[in-house]
């Protein structure tokens, strides 16, 4: 595939002068940038602000009734009680006592209706801001943020990182933005695969090896340069930079007392690693916590899972606030959907997307706020109903990205977010 270098966009012209110059946005035919955001002044401002995004994905479908929107005493309420928080008048589930103490940093969106009860489609629309269709694929929020907040001249480190409990590798989640913005997955919070130099290889050996690779590459590129070859070159250079900064991914280098504060379990370590990555300038970090798909024994499983979530999450929010990072870091706690208010015969709750909750914090998000309301039994939204598209706009606006901007894909302007929707103004301070 030939790269369309004749676009003349300012972003591209600037980028060409850099070390990673000539690296286009991806393999696809993306030739432009993010509209006004791509101007040097806008990008410079975002970089100076150090805008970052952290998404915590409550994998499987977190129950809103056992977290952000409890209904104690209602037929649908289950056994858990509601507790007061640091914000007078706001109550959340008793399963989140530590989170309750940082409520003044958070905003709860209790009127989410996404009308999608399928796991795959549900998480797609929450991470893409659009419903999945066979006609088009869109980049995930992480890829969009990584591109929009990328420092001028590119970044030595990947801007889109997912900390997973599964395996590592590279995601396929950037669509037309290309693999450059696809996620790097840190399986079980470990550094990227093959990011350490082989044993026995000296600095001189390594330098000569890379020198030879570049020589061969340049010879090849002088005659056959394409988007694909550029990406190939970029991947190698980024990998080299990543190897040199591998310690950024090593959570064991964090102070022992911090490791104890976050807890000796995977989610705690992953939250601490997320803090470390954000502090080192990674633009977008996603952490997953499993598993909330509790069709059976919902209450016992939520008791366990929320107990594991509560401490590290509250600690992370406190740390971001104490370190002055919360003003520039958007935190989103989302899921693919909520769970049914009805309690089934197995003490379980099934999939429910018509009335559920998302928790936000940081950046331009209003603090200590609740938006939206569900009815007495939690079956329907009765006030301030919002959906995935509005939330997607809001995420972008919260970190200063113009969510109405377009991306030029092969000469066709593609809206960054669903143009039929708009940000939730009440949430933006």
């Amino acid at each position, binding site marked *: 595939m030939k790269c369309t270098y004749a676009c003349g966009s300012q972003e591209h012209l600037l980028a060409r002068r850099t070390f990673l110059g000539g690296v286009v946005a991806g393999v696809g035919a993306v030739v432009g940038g993010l509209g006004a955001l791509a101007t040097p002044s806008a990008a410079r401002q975002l970089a100076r602000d150090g805008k970052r995004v952290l998404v915590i994905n409550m994998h*499987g479908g977190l129950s809103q009734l056992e977290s952000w929107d409890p209904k104690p*005493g209602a*037929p649908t309420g*289950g*056994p*858990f*009680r509601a507790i007061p928080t640091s914000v007078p008048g706001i109550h959340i589930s008793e399963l989140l006592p530590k989170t309750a103490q940082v409520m003044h940093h958070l905003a709860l969106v209790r009127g989410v209706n996404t009308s999608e009860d399928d796991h795959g489609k549900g998480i797609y629309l929450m991470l893409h801001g659009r419903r999945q269709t066979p006609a088009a694929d869109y980049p995930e929020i992480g890829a969009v943020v990584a591109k929009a907040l990328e420092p001028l001249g590119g970044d030595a480190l990947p801007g889109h990182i997912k900390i997973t*409990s599964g395996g590592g590798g590279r995601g396929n989640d950037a669509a037309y933005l290309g693999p450059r913005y696809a996620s790097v997955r840190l399986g079980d919070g470990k550094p990227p695969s093959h990011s350490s130099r082989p044993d026995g290889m000296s600095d001189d050996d390594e330098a000569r090896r890379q020198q030879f690779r570049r020589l061969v590459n340049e010879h090849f590129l002088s005659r056959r340069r394409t988007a694909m070859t550029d990406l190939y070159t970029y991947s190698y250079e980024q990998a080299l930079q990543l190897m040199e900064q591998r310690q950024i991914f090593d959570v064991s280098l964090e102070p022992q007392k911090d490791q104890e504060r976050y807890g000796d379990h995977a989610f705690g370590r992953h939250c601490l690693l997320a803090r470390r990555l954000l502090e080192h300038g990674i633009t977008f970090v996603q952490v997953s916590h*499993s*598993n909330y*798909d*509790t*069709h*059976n*024994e919902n209450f016992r*499983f939520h*008791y*366990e899972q929320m107990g594991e979530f509560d401490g590290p999450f509250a600690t992370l929010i406190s740390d971001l606030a104490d370190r002055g990072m919360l003003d520039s870091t958007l935190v989103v706690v989302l899921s693919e959907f909520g769970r049914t208010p009805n*309690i089934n*015969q*197995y003490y*379980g709750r099934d999939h429910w997307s018509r009335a559920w909750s998302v928790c936000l914090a940081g950046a331009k998000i209003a603090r200590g706020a609740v938006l939206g309301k569900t009815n007495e039994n939690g079956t329907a939204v009765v006030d301030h109903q919002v959906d995935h598209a509005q939330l997607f706009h809001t995420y972008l606006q919260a970190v200063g990205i113009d969510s109405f901007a377009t991306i030029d894909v092969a000469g066709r302007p593609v809206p960054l977010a669903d143009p039929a929707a708009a940000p939730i103004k009440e949430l933006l301070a």
Partner: protein
Amino acid sequence: MVRVAADPKAVHVAEEFQHDRPLISCRFDPTGRFVFACSEDFTIQRWELATKNKVALAGHGSWPRDIAFTPSGDVAISCGYDEMLIWWETAAEKPQPLRTLKAHQGWVDAVAISPDGRLVASGGRDRIVRIWQVEDGAPVREMSGHEKHIYSAAFHPSGEYLLSGDLGGKVHQWEVATGKLVRTFDATALWSYNSGQQVDYGGVRSIAFRQDGQQVAFSGLHNASNPLGAVNEPLVLRFSWEKAEKLRSHVAQGVRGVAWRACFHPEGFLLAANGGSGGGWLLFWKEDDDQAFHKFQLPNTARGMDLHPDGIQVATAHYDRKLRISRLAPKAT
């Protein structure tokens, strides 16, 4: 009370008691006059069997989980997810809490009263077993050693020992007089960890002693291929008391669910109530067979069960808001 021989193969649902919310567990009082059921509406419902008169016991601030009685039947003590133990006068016309005691940090799943009626034991999510005096609620001692959430407890008929079972399938035997851990029964066949779903699942859902104290049964589930989706099968483990050795793994071919509670029938067989994706069942096993010798399908999934002192009536608590009385006898003609 004149006892007639039980006929498990003739079991049938004889009566239904209606409530307006799903039920969680059930117990007969020792006199056999009442049946009690814990409900999702935070109440315990009491029905008088002879009259069907229904009375609510209100006091818990969350789901009540179980209820135990002194041998005389005068006093009932319930436990709940509100961290509380509550004392009640069993036969009071309008029962009110006699004593409310914050017993644990987190859910209290297990409550048991000693055979002499002097002590009550409790256990829950804080993984601590506590013993209290029934008379005044004073703490007697507490025992630590469980690594996971405690689900069940029962005193040995001698009163000298207490067993407590946990999510991990470990059953600790404690010496009541000293609180010393005597030994641990290995019921880990009732537990599994699903690495895909990253969940611990199963546990010792009930403990039942044979009347002579020489055998003990632990009920729960196994073959949990999908814990979050309720795909599992009932399992009851029968152990010898003397050597703490597993004698039988009682299963029920073709039945999916959890053996929420098992009881030894005075005539020697073991019965359990199953609930789950395979529906509600009463399951019956003889001492020498792993497979059930009889299975009886209930109209709705069962969540709790108890055997009446007459050995004929079996109460089951159901999701469909009904308490059912089944009889281990031919239908009356």
